[in-house]
């Protein structure tokens, strides 16, 4: 596994820094819009999380525990009922579903999101080339999104989140549909980014390789609990207690 020890060292050095993203006391309850239809669900009951520069954090939890809700709140796609969030730097969001425009090509998708991120056309082209090369989807740049396989669509979904080279990456089940080579390429990219100081939070309901993470937070009963079992290879010095 490349760069793991370097990355852990970087993370340790930066642990004293302020968090790039911090959320405190996040509460969220979904209420049925109509009486007698559906039911109210309390998802988050005071979740706290702080993410520090250069660390890779796993967020785990059972199905329906509120992981995606938490991520949407962290990224600003959903308002919490209460609690506060502070972000210091740019955020990239890779949602669980590929929220893209089906009839646009991959290249057009980058052009549109480049506008959203405020990037110049040159920078969009450059970043698109880098990401397409890294995640191996160059030959699909002129394909429509709805003509891509699930795995390639997920690559584009991830690449859109990375387009503006964000300070914090929030990834919701990012490797769903990846083949083994792409999965490894994803981790290589994630570790390189973390080594450069990018903070990465990855949601997964199943984390099989704990050593890839600096910390693992479990969402349980609406709150985040740091798992005490230490990662094998990445001895992060980040304080837990989230």
């Amino acid at each position, binding site marked *: 596994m490349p760069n793991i020890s370097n990355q852990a060292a970087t993370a340790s050095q930066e642990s004293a820094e302020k968090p790039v993203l911090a959320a405190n006391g996040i509460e969220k309850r979904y209420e049925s819009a109509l009486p007698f239809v559906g039911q109210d669900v309390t998802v988050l009951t005071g979740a706290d999380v702080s993410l520090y520069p250069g660390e890779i954090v796993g967020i785990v939890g059972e199905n329906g525990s509120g992981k995606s809700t938490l991520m949407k709140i962290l990224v600003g*796609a959903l308002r919490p009922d209460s609690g506060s969030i502070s972000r210091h730097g740019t955020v990239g*969001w890779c*949602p669980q579903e590929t*929220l*893209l425009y089906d*009839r646009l090509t991959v290249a057009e998708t980058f052009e549109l*999101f480049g506008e*959203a*991120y405020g990037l110049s056309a040159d920078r969009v082209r450059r970043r698109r080339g880098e990401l397409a090369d890294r995640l191996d989807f160059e030959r699909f740049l002129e394909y429509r999104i709805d003509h891509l396989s699930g795995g390639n669509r997920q690559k584009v979904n991830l690449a*859109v989140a990375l387009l503006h080279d964000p300070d914090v990456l929030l990834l919701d089940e990012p490797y769903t549909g990846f083949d083994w080579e792409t999965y490894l390429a994803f981790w290589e990219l994630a570790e390189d980014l973390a080594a450069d100081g990018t903070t990465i939070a990855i949601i997964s309901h199943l984390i099989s390789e704990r050593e890839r993470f600096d910390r693992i937070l479990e969402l349980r009963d609406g709150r985040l609990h740091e798992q005490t079992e230490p990662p094998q290879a990445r001895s992060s010095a980040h304080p837990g207690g989230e």
Partner: protein
Amino acid sequence: MGGVVTASRLRLTELARQPLTLGLLVALPPVVIELYGTSMESFPRLPTLGADPAVAGRLTGALFAVAFLAGLVGLFQVISAREGDERLAVAGFPHGRMLASRLVAMCVVALLGAVVSFGTLSYRVEVASPVLAFAALVLAAAIYGLLGVIVGTLVPRELEGSIVLVFLADFDNVLSSGLFSLTATVPVPFVGDVRVAETAPLYHPRELFTAAVLDGTLAGEHLAPIALWIVGLLVVAVLAYGRSTQGPTERLAGWSA
């Protein structure tokens, strides 16, 4: 501004990649106009119609076709891209520019619908003032395009939104057609009592259109109400769309933890 241009171009590209939609846009207006005209041929000449029944039918068909198609485009512009818009907004694309790009795309399609409807009508009916008649069709399309955006924002599901729009357009078309002479009045704030028919969104465009086609005159008294409709609907569309793209998943897609 650059964002609006890029987004509008890409919205139109998306639309152009739906050949069925484009086909229907070209094929439906002639069918509707002819169906309305043919079905009203057997009607007696009513004093409230102001024209030969077949001609009145074709005028009604042209107006309905252009308005309803614009409404549908507005509706699906909002609904089909809802999730993508949510992500684009989170990525930093301003809501106002996003809506503007939707409206630009809707206007282009509405213009296309107006051209097809006007062409079909001109083939069958002698139009006294083509420019005014075409402008009236475009105004009707603008009103219904905005109504489509509003319905799509408030009822963000394809089936339910379409049903609402169908009933709205159908009711509006009948109410404003002059087929029924409704004398009842309703109070309208800042305006006073107006006849029920005059509250229909298509009423004023229809009067403008009819005068242009039959007499070649500009029924100027209807311009202000049309402008009021467009500005009012635009304000509602901006407010509704702005609200819907700020956390739409929470309200619309249900619970996805």
